[in-house]
């Protein structure tokens, strides 16, 4: 019986644990006694059934009572906390601001990570979509129409395979002719992706039949931008190039990969893609291919299947997939392709934001601890009045919870305000940037972070409070000495803050060094005062080499005469971009390739004669192009230095000949020019062969105009000249080359800025932290300092002592941060350019900066300490 009693008591006590601590300590023993009697009587009267009934009623009663009691407790605590916050507005403001910045940084970066890396692709079949890449050795190559249809019929892992390429059309009938970026796709492209049109219909098989009426679908962004979101645009017709096109549908807002297009058309709309020679030529490789895996297939299964198809093709058509080129096909999940550029940067930023929050938490914990010293008496009195330890713990946690929640709200405001900036930042890395929103996930995450923050910043002082209440009342004097333990705790927090700040500063410092290096890379040409613009000719109107050549020559002649123009050139592509690339094999005369051996390869560029002059690319050997390098005269080419060195083996190439068509036509090398950073400052120089525009006309080119004046100031004039040559010909992407250069390094610049911002924030928080702690320490040690001075210490010694103590904390922090940095900055490797993660200069520089910041922060309290008047300090006793 006694055993049953004690078991029941234990169970009842366990049940009581559901109630708040206070309630339990007020009424627990009494309730236990009542329950005991209740149970005994029920047993006496109704036996086991009676006892069970009492248990049931008791359990229900406690479950009903507990939530209300907890809420009441929270209300009471929160009310008290708010009063305390109002009482010390300085502390409250500092804490809320610090936490707001810390939490804001996290919710901002999380909103990006969530949209870009965590959410599934917003296509119905997003997880089953793959990108196929043709590889010849290390080079990516497009697919031909025949490749595409072979992969489609032979693959067993895919249940859909579609092609894509991008081209420019000219839309007429608006105020100015407009260049329209066009995605040219298989009819079932959107069906395979699982994208349903917002309005109208998607393509059907009959739209892709030769001779079918021309149709187009608008991208959501173009529809909004050019038609103001007017749904009646469906069924309207537009003249694009020579044909009337009917709008059949509008796409929803989805990420577009690999290009952001204005409109989409079926493959038959592209005269090149649908010309019989392209369709029949296995080497006419111009399209990209996407596949949809059958349900349940993994990417590696699909890869194995498609590698099998590649092997079959290589066996069947050895001429088209030469052995020496190590031909293969690579399968990548579309999700990976869309986000892999963003991943390393976003994760680094998320980590940085996390560190900032850690520092903010440590800082608020420290502020709390300092305030605790002032509240010692209050806490001690409350303890004496019977507030339990748990009760005070809870009270202090409630205070930090309120601070964190208000800080979290502020943080949300910050990140909401930064949303547009974030979207434009993320769009440098991924087409998914427009999916970034402040949604329920971000709100939930922020709340979670706030709760975590309150625990982190509230527990330490709450634990310290336990120690406080024991001693304070006993001492009773006006001056209370803080416990050694608490001082140690505060010093520890400071050391931690400095260590994490060091880590962040190193990260930002490395990025900055890397960015400076990037900025100082010699591009091999002068980008200053160069105006560029893209011109894509109407390929229907300018359908012969003669017409294309005539157009560009006429235009360049006119531009050359324009005031402020030093030299006007045209080029297939401008530096710092990676638009159209023509990589081709060739053979050098007298060096017949061995069978099975890879042929020399280079990137071919078509340029007009003034190109080298306009960009100040030095001619190292021989000559550049001349007006006489025209059809009828021998075909000529100019090599860049790398090509001469690598492909001609360093022998003087001028005067030699090569052939890119198996020996039918021979092209003479007439000169060698300097290397330029064509694909970006951080990219390697490639082997290049320049050929003259007049001998190799093209329908798309960029103007490259060296000016004597600010380049954008003559842009309008150049466009007018263009319209003078052909009023229906638009120019696109009118930019100075310096703008192009700035855009090409925008991603590392913005990443550096963000990381730098986080690091500065961390530095500011940590420095004020050190200063605050030293100020408090000085305040509390006035008496001791007074004694020291009374027995002969000079002010300078006191100053040195306090500075030394603050600096010691900073140095321990730096030492710890050093280990952390050596370990963690490896993760930055991918983002760095020509800087190692252990770059000594950065480490030394950051240590000095941090040390100076600590010195400055400690100087004010140290000086105050050195001015302590011993008489006054001792009299206070």
């Amino acid at each position, binding site marked *: 019986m006694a055993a049953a009693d004690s078991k029941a008591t234990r169970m009842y006590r366990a049940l009581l644990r559901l109630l708040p601590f206070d309630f339990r300590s007020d009424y627990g023993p009494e309730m236990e006694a*009542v329950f005991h*009697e209740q149970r005994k009587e029920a047993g006496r009267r109704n036996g086991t059934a009676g006892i069970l009934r009492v248990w049931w009623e008791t359990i229900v009663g406690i479950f009903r009572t507990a939530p209300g009691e907890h809420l009441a407790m929270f209300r009471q605590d929160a009310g008290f906390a708010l009063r305390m916050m109002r009482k010390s507005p300085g502390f409250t403001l500092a804490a809320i601001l610090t936490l707001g910045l810390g939490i804001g940084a996290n919710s901002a970066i999380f909103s990006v990570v969530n949209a870009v890396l965590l959410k599934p692709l917003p296509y119905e079949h997003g997880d089953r979509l793959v990108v196929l890449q043709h590889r010849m050795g290390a080079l990516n190559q497009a697919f031909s129409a025949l490749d595409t249809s072979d992969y489609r019929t032979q693959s067993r892992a895919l249940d859909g395979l579609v092609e894509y390429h991008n081209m420019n059309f000219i839309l007429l009938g608006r105020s100015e002719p407009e260049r329209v970026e066009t995605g040219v796709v298989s009819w079932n492209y959107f069906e395979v992706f699982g994208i349903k049109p917002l309005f109208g219909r998607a393509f059907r098989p009959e739209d892709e039949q030769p001779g079918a009426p021309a149709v187009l679908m608008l991208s959501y962004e173009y529809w909004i931008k050019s038609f103001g979101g007017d749904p009646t645009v469906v069924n309207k017709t537009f003249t694009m190039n020579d044909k009337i096109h009917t709008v059949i549908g509008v796409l929803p807002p989805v990420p577009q990969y690999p290009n952001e297009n204005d409109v989409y058309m079926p493959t038959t709309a592209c005269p090149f893609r649908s010309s019989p020679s392209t369709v029949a030529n296995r080497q006419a490789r111009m399209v990209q291919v996407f596949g949809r895996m059958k349900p349940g297939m993994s990417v590696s299964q699909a890869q194995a299947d498609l590698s099998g198809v590649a092997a079959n093709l290589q066996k069947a058509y050895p001429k088209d997939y030469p052995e020496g080129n190590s031909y293969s096909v690579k399968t990548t999940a579309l999700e990976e392709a869309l986000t892999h550029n963003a991943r390393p940067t976003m994760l680094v930023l998320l980590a940085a934001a996390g560190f900032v929050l850690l520092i903010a938490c440590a800082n608020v914990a420290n502020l709390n601890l300092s305030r605790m010293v002032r509240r010692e008496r209050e806490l001690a009195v409350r303890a004496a009045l019977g507030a339990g330890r748990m009760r005070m713990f809870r009270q202090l946690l409630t205070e930090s919870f309120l601070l964190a929640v208000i800080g979290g709200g502020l943080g949300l405001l910050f990140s909401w305000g930064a949303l547009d900036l974030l979207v434009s930042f993320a769009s440098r890395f991924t087409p998914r940037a427009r999916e970034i929103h402040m949604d329920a996930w971000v709100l939930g995450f922020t709340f979670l972070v706030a709760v975590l923050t309150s625990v982190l910043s509230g527990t330490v002082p709450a634990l310290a409070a336990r120690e406080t209440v024991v001693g304070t009342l006993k001492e009773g004097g006006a001056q209370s000495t803080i416990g050694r333990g608490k001082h140690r705790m505060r010093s520890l927090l400071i050391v931690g803050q400095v260590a994490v700040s060091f880590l962040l500063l190193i990260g930002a410092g490395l990025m900055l060094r890397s960015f400076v290096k990037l900025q100082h890379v010699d591009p091999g040409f002068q980008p200053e005062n160069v105006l560029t613009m893209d011109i894509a000719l109407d390929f229907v109107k300018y359908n012969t080499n003669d017409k294309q050549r005539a157009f560009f020559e006429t235009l360049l002649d006119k531009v050359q005469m324009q005031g402020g123009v030093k030299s006007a050139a045209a080029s297939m592509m401008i530096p710092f971009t990676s638009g159209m690339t023509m990589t081709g094999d060739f053979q050098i005369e007298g060096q017949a390739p061995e069978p099975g051996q890879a042929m020399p390869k280079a990137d071919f560029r078509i340029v007009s004669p003034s190109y080298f002059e306009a960009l100040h690319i030095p001619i190292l050997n021989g000559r550049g192009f001349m007006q006489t390098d025209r059809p009828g005269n021998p075909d000529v080419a100019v090599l860049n230095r790398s090509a001469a060195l690598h492909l001609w083996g360093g022998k003087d190439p001028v005067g030699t000949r090569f052939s890119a068509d198996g020996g039918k036509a021979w092209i003479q090398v007439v000169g060698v020019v300097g290397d330029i950073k064509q694909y970006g400052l951080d990219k390697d120089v490639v082997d290049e062969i320049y050929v003259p525009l007049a001998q190799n006309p093209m329908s798309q080119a960029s103007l490259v105009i060296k000016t004597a004046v600010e380049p954008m100031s003559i842009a309008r004039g150049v466009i007018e000249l263009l319209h003078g040559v052909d009023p229906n010909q638009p120019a696109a992407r009118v930019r100075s080359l310096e703008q192009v250069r700035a855009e090409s390094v925008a991603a590392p610049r913005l990443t550096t800025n963000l990381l730098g911002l986080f690091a500065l924030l961390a530095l500011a928080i940590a420095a004020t932290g050190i200063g605050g702690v030293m100020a408090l320490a000085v305040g509390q040690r006035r008496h001791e300092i007074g004694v020291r001075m009374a027995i002969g210490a000079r002010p300078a010694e006191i100053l040195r002592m306090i500075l030394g103590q603050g600096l010691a904390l900073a140095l321990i922090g730096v030492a710890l941060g050093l280990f952390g940095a050596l370990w963690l900055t490896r993760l930055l490797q991918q983002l760095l350019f020509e800087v190692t993660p252990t770059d000594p200069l950065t480490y030394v520089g950051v240590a000095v900066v941090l040390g100076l910041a600590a010195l400055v922060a400690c100087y004010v309290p140290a000086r105050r300490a050195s001015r302590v008047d011993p008489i006054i300090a001792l009299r206070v006793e």
Partner: protein
Amino acid sequence: MTAAQNNVEPFGPLTPAMFHVLLALAGDDLHGYAILKEVELRTGGKVRLSTGTLYGIIKRLLNDGLIAELRSRPVESQDDERRRYYRLTPQGRQVATAEAERMDEILSIARSRNLLKKTRMA
């Protein structure tokens, strides 16, 4: 009546269980278990309070000043020392009275609509 009502307002509506506890204490000063028994007895077993519910109510009534804890125990020697005794305060009595009167008014309306037999009136 109006004075009583003015006093009642800050405490909000009494739940039936709270009213029962006040009624139980209207007769005598009681300890927790005795309150439970009294309520059960008076209601013929219809209202059974559990310990959680009872002490939730006691806490509120104490906070609102409607009951008070007794400092002295009636029969000290034979008592479980964990027991505490409670007494209705004058304010508690007012509130209980006000509640009873409010119910009485409702009952008379019910009677006038012939929803209740008058004979039950004592």
